[in-house]
């Protein structure tokens, strides 16, 4: 089957997101990766992931057509996807392994270092099934984080080679792995392997996967947005401001949206949109990234926690410590200062979340206030404690407002970009004289 699609890419400072929309503007696939130093690779990987996700959507549809019930469908696809991800992980691990040895050779390391690397990678390979087992908790979905944390733990236990040597080799190698679009592999490679690993007891899945293989995915238009948009290998007319993309994306998710708050990695945007999703006014933080997602990132690092663990921990607070500064650079100092004064981690975190939201409230006020309905997007919208603080402050300052937060809110900018892509494509179909 021939499927035409448009794709939107949002190159953020922390993550790069891609959304694929079919001709009916329905979401076919989403992809996300960490924004490495190479934006071109980040956008290719995110687009590749979105295409893989599109195939999964197609498999789900095929299963539906074949009469497979939703529960069975979830079970089959869930298990298939875990195996698929495991294959992807193993593929990247193989690239990592050869890259590690390559650097070890170039820096003339002892044979003991090579033996240590072999042992570590062999152990990581043997653990991969457990890492992607049903119900297994993973700190992150990005290879850098998954492989990095385990590699470092295993390096510390190594007797044959020094930790700093191994860690140094990893730091060099992971950049190469991340910056290679081949390391992550393709749908066809991993899907076949995942099917094999799944066994033959799911013929309906095998048929659906085969059907999905047969789809011809045809890209009609691409639009890029986000901080790295100038670096995207797209023509200038295919690049849109992230403020407009977030406005339109939020409108697409919640058509009654009038105010959008986006807290991303390095900026916070307060946007007002009209009934068509057109931006009427916006405010964003100035050159200082105080109180943005990156601030939470530093705090998580300081506490040796995963980013997604901060919110739940803050949720256990019994009181809120008053924090005035949300300076990202001083985040660690602020935290240690409070800890040394004997404050509990949970209470400090609750205060930090409130401080971030207070800063966002100021931008919202400057942009024209909070109107019904209010949509919260960006990575920080995934943080339960930030949402709690926002809900409370909006209620106190503006009264009752419907607060929309999509589980897919991180994709809002990319969704808006994909919609702009369709608009451009649809306009391009119109003869010149009609356009004028």
């Amino acid at each position: 089957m021939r499927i035409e699609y448009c794709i939107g890419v949002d190159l953020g400072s922390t993550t790069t997101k891609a959304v694929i929309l079919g001709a009916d503007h329905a979401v076919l696939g989403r992809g996300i990766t960490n924004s490495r130093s190479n934006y071109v690779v980040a956008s290719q990987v995110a687009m590749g992931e979105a295409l893989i996700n599109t195939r999964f959507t197609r498999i789900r549809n095929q299963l539906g057509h074949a009469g497979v019930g939703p529960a069975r469908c979830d079970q089959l696809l869930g298990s298939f996807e875990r195996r698929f991800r495991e294959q992807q992980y193993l593929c990247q691990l193989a690239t990592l392994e050869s890259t590690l040895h390559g650097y070890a050779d170039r820096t003339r390391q002892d044979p003991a270092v090579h033996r240590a690397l072999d042992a570590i990678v062999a152990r990581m390979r043997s653990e991969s099934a457990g890492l992607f087992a049903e119900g297994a908790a993973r700190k992150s979905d990005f290879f850098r984080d998954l492989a990095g944390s385990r590699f470092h733990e295993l390096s510390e236990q190594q007797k044959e080679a020094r930790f700093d040597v191994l860690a140094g080799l990893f730091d060099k190698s992971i950049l190469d792995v991340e910056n290679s679009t081949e390391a992550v592999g393709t749908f066809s490679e991993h899907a076949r392997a995942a099917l094999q690993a799944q066994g033959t007891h799911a013929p309906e899945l095998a048929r659906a996967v085969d059907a999905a293989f047969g789809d011809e995915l045809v890209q009609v238009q691409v639009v890029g947005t986000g901080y790295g948009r100038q670096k995207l290998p797209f023509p200038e007319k295919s690049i849109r401001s992230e403020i407009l993309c977030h406005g339109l994306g939020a409108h697409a998710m919640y058509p009654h949206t009038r105010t959008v708050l986006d807290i991303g990695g390095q900026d916070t945007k307060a946007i007002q949109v009209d009934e068509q999703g057109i931006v009427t006014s916006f405010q964003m933080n100035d050159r200082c990234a105080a109180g943005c997602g990156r601030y939470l990132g530093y705090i998580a690092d300081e506490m040796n926690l995963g980013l997604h663990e901060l919110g739940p921990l803050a949720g256990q607070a019994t009181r809120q410590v008053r924090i005035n500064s949300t300076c990202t650079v001083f985040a660690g100092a602020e935290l240690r200062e409070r800890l040394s004064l004997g404050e509990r981690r949970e209470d400090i975190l609750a205060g930090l979340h409130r401080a971030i939201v207070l800063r966002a409230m100021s931008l919202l006020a400057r942009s024209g206030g909070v109107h019904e309905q209010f949509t919260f997007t960006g990575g920080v919208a995934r943080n339960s404690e930030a949402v709690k603080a926002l809900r409370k402050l909006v209620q106190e300052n503006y009264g009752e407002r419907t607060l929309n937060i999509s589980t897919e809110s991180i994709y809002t900018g990319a969704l808006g970009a994909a919609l702009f892509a369709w608009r451009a494509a649809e306009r391009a179909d119109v003869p010149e004289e009609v356009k004028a």
Partner: protein
Amino acid sequence: MSNPATAQIHKDASQERQKRMIAEHFHRLAQAPDTGHKCAYTFVPGNLTELLRTFDVLPVLPEINALQSGMRGRSRDYIALAEKLGHSEDVCTYVKCDVGMLHSGNVGPTGERLPRPDLLLLSYTGCFTFMKWFEILAQEYECPVVMLHVPYQGDGRITDAMRRYVVDQLRRKVIPMLEKVSGKAYDEDLLRQHLARSAQAETDLVAVLEAAKHRPSPIDAYFGGVYYIGPIFTAFRGTQDAIEYYRELRAEVEERMRAGKGPVTPEGELEHEKYRVVVEGPPNWTSFRQFWQMFVDEGAVVVASTYTKVGGVYDNGFRHDPARPLETLAEYCMGCYTNLDLPTRVAMLSRYVQEYSADGFLINSVKSCNSFSAGQLMILREVEKRTGRPGGFIESDLVDPRYFSASNIKNRLESYFQMIEQKRSSGAGT
């Protein structure tokens, strides 16, 4: 070998003339210790240039020196030096730039040394920083200070009592001090002659700025505008040089208008005017060209700006009036842009958006200047409400390069212009 005569044809004659005027002025200043010319340091808003000239006193404008230092890439070091001397990061960066320059030999923008002041003339008190600035300079130079207290137009108008109050100070404080410093008696007829010349140049300046009502606009009234206001806002108001400069400039601009040409930018002539905007607030000086280029890249022309009114709001009809010499100076001091109350500023911006057929208006909020920045968000909302055109907000600073984030400003500008575009294509906001 290129013919110098033909090479000059490509440069506007008025530009050459302005450059020559400025060089001569700074040369006169550098020679002042030898020629015995007396010098007064003073500020642009509410400057009393005609009165100074009546006593043959030469003006030095520290703000202009600071912005020139910013444009020449010197301000970073000057500010660092001032901070080393104890001035906080939060102090207005014009002040710190000036203090740093003073402690680095006081070399002006043309490379010649500036003279020490014989008098510090503070003729606008609407900016509290000006007072503190002159306190610093008074300590440095140990010279007399004279202050003209200028009432704020809190009710949006100048009353008789306000005018009398300022005229009284001119008579009792400022003129006697100038007589003392210069050793010359006050000659009101001479002042009238200067004022008559001022009015002539002012009329031509208004014609230049209002040429931007034309489509396409032959000028950029912000980035280009700062060059046009240069002579009249600084040392040349009331001079024959100023009359000739503005006559020439007006003719050039009107010629461009007749020929349907767009403004001249650092990259050459802007051929396709895509957006027309009004700008409130001073420009950033340290990245002036880069900032301008961001507008040029989008095809945006600034058709009116409030910054070009800081040294006089002439387009509301005000002209220096030789028939009422001291009263007219009093009205001038009280009428400068930052002395207007917020409702008047809102009305002025709204009028600009409408009369200049602007697609919207932008505020460049500078960290240093409370006189400008206080109330700008209210202004933004209010002008949006009155005109139905979208407002944009960017933040930078005057001369501290640390407060100019190119990527952040570019991001906001691009978003702003795309927002206008989106409104146009959807038929909204028109």
